[in-house]
């Protein structure tokens, strides 16, 4: 399957995403430059982690104006798959491709650690390879990952199943102690209403090799790949 990883100035996990997709998972993945508007025929766009433009203003607030974001928004509107990881999630929120916003962590400190998240909805293009309720161990590393949205919006999102991942403890229970950044309702990842745009603070691309501490991140990518494979006959037929 064809993937495009967008490199913004200040992107940091762009090379990691490319490595995970291309070298580890054997996908056809290419880097896309933020000043270009072409998506190179990619079937899934990855907005990677990092500090785009230094994040000196709000995180992602400037990156959303990069030329490529016009194409990404059009691609998403046409139902194309877009996944934003960490800074990519922040950019998607700033671009209003996802609801809500990401604020400073409750601790006011950057946090780098492995966390456990629960798959809340396994019937989406990003989670279909997981079981509902499955617990994934993934790394986080961010200073502004506290997810917030208006209460009524959150309620509606929950009803529609847009909350895909929630921080939980190892037994699978959501709790204050298991919430690393103070996110409302312990939300770690959300999808749009069309379920073709997904943002998450944990880094699945940093969890695809046992040699680096775990491979639960494969669930996310395998879901996307499985969707493309099942869609393929329709395209050719």
């Amino acid at each position, binding site marked *: 399957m064809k993937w495009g990883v967008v490199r913004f*100035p*200040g992107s*940091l*996990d762009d*090379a*990691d995403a490319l*490595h*995970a997709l291309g*070298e580890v998972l054997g996908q056809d993945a290419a880097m896309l430059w933020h*000043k270009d508007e072409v998506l190179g025929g990619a079937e899934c766009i990855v907005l990677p*982690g*990092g*500090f785009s*433009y*230094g*994040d*000196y203003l709000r995180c992602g607030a400037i990156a959303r104006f990069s030329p490529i974001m016009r194409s990404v928004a059009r691609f998403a509107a046409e139902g194309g798959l877009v996944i934003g990881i960490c800074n990519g999630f922040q950019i998607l929120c700033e671009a209003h491709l996802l609801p809500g916003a990401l604020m400073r962590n409750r*601790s006011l*400190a*950057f*946090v*780098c*650690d492995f966390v456990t998240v629960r798959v809340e909805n396994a019937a989406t293009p990003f989670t279909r390879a997981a079981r509902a309720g499955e617990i994934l161990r993934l*790394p986080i*590393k961010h*200073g502004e990952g506290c997810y917030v949205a208006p209460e009524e919006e959150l309620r509606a999102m929950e009803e529609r199943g847009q909350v895909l991942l929630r921080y939980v403890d190892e037994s699978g229970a959501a709790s204050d102690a298991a919430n690393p950044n103070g996110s409302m309702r312990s939300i770690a990842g959300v999808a749009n209403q069309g379920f073709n745009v997904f943002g998450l603070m944990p*880094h699945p*691309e*940093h969890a695809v*090799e046992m*040699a*680096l*501490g775990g491979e639960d991140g494969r669930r996310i990518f395998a879901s996307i790949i499985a969707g493309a494979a099942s869609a393929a006959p329709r395209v050719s037929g």
Partner: protein
Amino acid sequence: MSAAPIALPGEPRVDLAEARAHGLSAEEYAAIERLLGRTPTFTELGVFSVMWSEHCSYKSSRKHLRMLPMSGPNVVGGPGENAGAIDVGDGWVAVFKIESHNHPSYVEPYQGAATGVGGILRDIFTMGARPIASMNSLKFGSFDHPRTRFLVGGVVGGIGGYGNCVGVPTVAGEVMFDAGYNGNILVNAFALGLARREDLQSARARGAGNPVLYVGSATGRDGIHGASLLASAEFDAESESKRPTVQVGDPFTEKLLIEACLEAMKTGAIVAIQDMGAAGLTSSSSEMAGRGGLGIELDLDRVPLREADLTPYEILLSESQERMLIVAERGREAELQAVFAKWDLHALVIGQVTGDGRWRTLHRGRVVADLPVGAISDDAPVYDRPARAPSAIDALAAASESAAETDAPAPAAALRALLGSPNVASKRWVYRQYDSIVRSNTMVGPGSDAAVLRIKDSRRGLALKVDSNPRACAIDPYIGAVAAVCEAARNVACAGARPAGISNCLNYGNPERPEIMWQFIRGVEGLRDAAIALGTPVISGNVSFYNETEGRAIAPTPVIAMVGTFADVRLHLKQYFKIAGDAVVVVRSAAPSYAASEYAALFGAPPRPLAPIDLGRERRLLDGLVECAERRLIRSAHDVSEGGLAVALAEACFNPAGMMGVEVDAGEGGHDGEVLFGEGASTVVISAPIENIEVIHQVFAPLEVRRIGRVTAAARLTIGAAINEDLAALKQIYETALPGRLNRP
């Protein structure tokens, strides 16, 4: 040849008093007048004051640093470049260096620490190497000191704020708290980069007529005289007023610079490149010209400025961050400029290489400085400062600055107290604030003995650790330095890597005092002897003098960054016990001692000298560890350091993948406190399948190899009848001590 530059309107008159205000001595000022055959202009005086400062010229240390072993079969590139490099196999070289940013971090902890990280990264990528790892060594004052919490928060925040934003993982480090650093903290930053051997860049100008490009951030007023007045003088009550000499970091621009420079290097149009570090534009331009035996001419009107009215003096001495100077091949400027334009960075031709050996700068059409290139760098004074050992009484006093001796606590109580001491306790609160995984190479991150990094597309890998032992150095600066090298090497070997090269940061007091100079010389001698014996060349380093406040110097603190190499990184080890039933074995090259121990600092112990270190036995220990890892004879290895054997055993049980326990037999030499909590000696705790014990004995012979007990599934730490503790409770003490002291969650 142009006429001598003339004074600019409004500039102070240059005389001896003005020279002294610039930190130059009367002799140094006389030497400048002799070299020039005239009085320097005010701008030129500023240039000399930074280039001849201790920080830039190494005038007190240079003579002694020559004794260090800087070559070896694995060393690539000669001295005089920005950082050294070692061959790590499969065509890869590792470039690494450690550098101090002590005074700026005390005055302004966040920016001081942040720009320390930024500066050392530029030293690495200017060599053509992609930075892949950072480490740091931090020394703070005691928690009783009112400034300590503020400094810890600022420094850790600054390292994270910069390092996390440039995408270089911070993979290891050390943190110590001691009242000796109350008025002068230490912040030493290390960076390592990887390059293909043939891609290494030069910092030697070639080709008269080649253009000089200025790249990166615009020049502002920040950091002026950082090198001379801040880094090369003692602290006093006025030091706070030097806050404006601390630079401000912009990690986003640094990230762009890394990518743009590495991309620009691929064009082949770069002849030489150097970052603008201490003394900024002045040092980078004069040093590149000096190495090439050439001259350089700069037009300051073309330098991008943050404020229009900067004087030539300010432009030349600014230490604004995130700037590089490039000598390009004539006619290929546009190729380079296109790359920097892609990354939205300045890349402006501001001068050219000349053949006349002069360092000449123009401003508004007039020559404002015209000096022989050599006068600025090569002709800086070299001092053979007097050195004198302190009297025996002073030495004893220095050695006994531990807590007053109290009744020895029960072993279990001592163990709990040690695990709760900030010097022993988990540093997780610190390293959790650092991105340690970006770039997807970190196989072992912070928390184990050494960090382990893989090299993609290769079986090879690297182990990294930074260590120091100021308490031992306070008792004996020679043995302390040897011990620091051995400990760093042991940590790397415990991961299974062969120690391969050293970068050092030598932190000392005022070298104009003979007893400090003596400490320094003894430290360099110790570093030399240990580096030679262990086969680990010193490929880069930095000296930081004047670490004192109000006349009180820090303990000598040579910080050793050790890099080890793996032939097959998959065979790396961690410190943690893994399998119940494995034998627990102690390998020792000498007997443990309370001298310079954390135990003595907490509970007091009679002052005693340090035992000499047998470097032959040390080498045997390291070779044995590497052999055990490569032959898969052992499952874990952990260095015994702060807190001694009992703490090391507890730490080996704290396996993040599942807590283990350990049962140590009573008897066999007894378990007096010194065996359990003594330090100093070179000891490792390993775990191994019982059937391998015989072979392990042979591998380490003639060292003492003692099987002391076994790994258990039950999470208890039992040592004969002396200690029987629940490890979950010990872990709780170990994990909460530091955040508890900082009053932070």
